[in-house]
């Protein structure tokens, strides 16, 4: 209940209204208002390899963070814009990683070709495998997506194919650390801004419609299965790219690509960053992954740590960092008499 006789009011800032919609930008303040947050994000991420240029270990961590960030963005896209809860992001990582390993180490394609081919082929394979549960609404997708990484991991182990428990070794690495750092950073930014554009285009509107009420979308003459398949294709493509990149980074593809970390961390990052914002997922990974690196000496207790962080966020700030920050940036509050 509010205080007697007055209530807090939230109002959009004038500058927000001026700069939204028609983009009637009439001066530097408006331009600054629009560009500032994006600039901070892009410049901040691009400067990371420079900042850590004398700390090779942390430069590697930046690459890993970007890989998790891409997975988290893909998770956020599927969960909050299409309504598919994907509990098996590690499947995409594993698929992309193993495909590029076969192409590169066994067939001899250079990474410039093997990574894109693994991305597209992995996306096609994941979409086909997940297709049977796409027409359904509800928990089916989550269950099936949780199973795939386990199935593949155990198949490789049991039949001792694709290097078995040793994995495939001898992948080409990147020629230097600048290449590896900037490739993944640029791709992450393209994925982030590309998806942000996509969800506001017509396709994105239809996808959000599928999430809200798939029967109404069907009644409008649109195939729900096709829309979901398209979304899964995009998300799994992102995941497979991340996986392919990761195995070139380690010059090795093994069973740990199917590890549970790759499935859990994106979910935690999305919750902490704020679901439905896409940027939030990225920010969440930039907080969680370095923290978990810092806590590496605690070994498996790290998992306890993220579980606690995740639970605390859900209880105390379930909206997430980005939703909160966006509100503070676009709106101000004041007390008014009623």
């Amino acid at each position: 209940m509010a205080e007697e006789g007055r209530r807090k009011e939230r109002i959009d800032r004038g500058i927000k209204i001026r700069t939204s919609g028609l983009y009637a930008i009439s001066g530097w303040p408006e331009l600054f208002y629009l560009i500032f947050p994006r600039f901070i994000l892009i410049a901040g991420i691009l400067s990371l390899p420079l900042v850590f240029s004398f700390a090779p270990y942390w430069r590697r961590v930046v690459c890993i963070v970007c890989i998790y960030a891409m997975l988290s963005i893909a998770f956020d896209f599927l969960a909050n814009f299409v309504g598919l809860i994907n509990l098996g992001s590690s499947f995409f990582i594993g698929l992309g990683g193993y495909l590029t390993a076969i192409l590169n180490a066994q067939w001899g394609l250079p990474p410039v070709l093997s990574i894109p081919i693994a991305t597209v082929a992995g996306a096609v394979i994941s979409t086909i495998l997940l297709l049977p549960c796409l027409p359904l609404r509800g928990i089916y997708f989550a269950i099936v997506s949780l199973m795939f990484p386990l199935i593949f991991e155990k198949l490789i182990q049991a039949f001792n194919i694709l290097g078995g428990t040793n994995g495939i070794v001898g992948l080409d690495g990147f020629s230097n650390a600048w290449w590896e750092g900037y490739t993944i950073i640029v791709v992450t930014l393209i994925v982030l801004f590309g998806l942000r554009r996509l969800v506001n285009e017509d396709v994105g509107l239809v996808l959000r419609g599928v999430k809200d009420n798939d029967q109404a979308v069907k009644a409008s003459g649109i195939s729900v299965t096709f829309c979901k398949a398209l979304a899964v294709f995009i998300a799994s493509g992102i995941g497979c790219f991340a996986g392919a990149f990761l195995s070139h980074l380690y010059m090795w593809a093994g069973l740990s690509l199917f590890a549970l970390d790759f499935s859990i961390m994106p979910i935690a990052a999305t919750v902490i960053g704020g679901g439905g914002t896409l940027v939030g997922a990225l920010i969440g990974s930039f907080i969680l992954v370095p923290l978990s690196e810092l806590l590496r000496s605690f070994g498996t207790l790290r998992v306890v740590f993220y579980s606690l962080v995740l639970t605390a966020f859900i209880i105390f700030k379930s909206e997430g960092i980005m939703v909160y920050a966006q509100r503070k940036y676009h709106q101000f509050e004041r007390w008014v008499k009623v």
Partner: protein
Amino acid sequence: MIEARDLMVFYENMIAVNNVTLHCDDGQIVGVFGANSAGKSTLMYVLSGIILDIQRKERMRGGERVTVFSKITYAGKDISLMKPHERAREGIILCPERRRIFPESSVLENLKIGAYLASKEQAKETLDYVFSLFPTLDRLKDRQGGFLSGGEQQMLAIGRSLMAQPKLLLLDEPLLGLAPSIQKDVIRVIKEIRRDRRISIIVTEQYARPVIPIVDYAYILENGSAVMEGKGKELMNNPDVKAAYFGV
């Protein structure tokens, strides 16, 4: 019975209920009429306390800020801050708009869920009473709630609220989407419930004509404010009201 003074509800900056004062005596049927967006459902949420739950959920999600000002006295007690389940325990039972029955439970189970607060004897007695009011439900006892027709679902929703042993029953748009003949049945039942159980009933509706003959007192809401109030008969003869809510 219940007296709500100066109710005000804001959904973010939009005012949904503006300074409404409402009063319902023991054994009365009070009608609240208004078009879409007049604030009827919000008023029901405030009386039943559900608004506090909506408020909390929105706050956790970082969504709209819901601001509520209310002074509600019920049976001589101030219940403005009481949680919805405690209000239900005190006998304020909401029969929500669009019925909200449990679609995967059978009719009998739905009614049993409603009787959670009642003692065994009360539950048994009320169950027989509900089946005597709605013989259709008796026939459909084992059918899943989701497979009932709109009219049967409405009967089930009313039955379920009765099972909770209401002293004050809040019926939110009980005639929504029903055929005129079924509307008539529901109205007859509301009257019977008041007669047999001696409870107070507050009923909201958009179209006043079928309901107004049974109400003792009525309020008319427009954009959140109570623009008119009076005895049912008086309102019926008011030309403005006639044009707006009776469709003549």
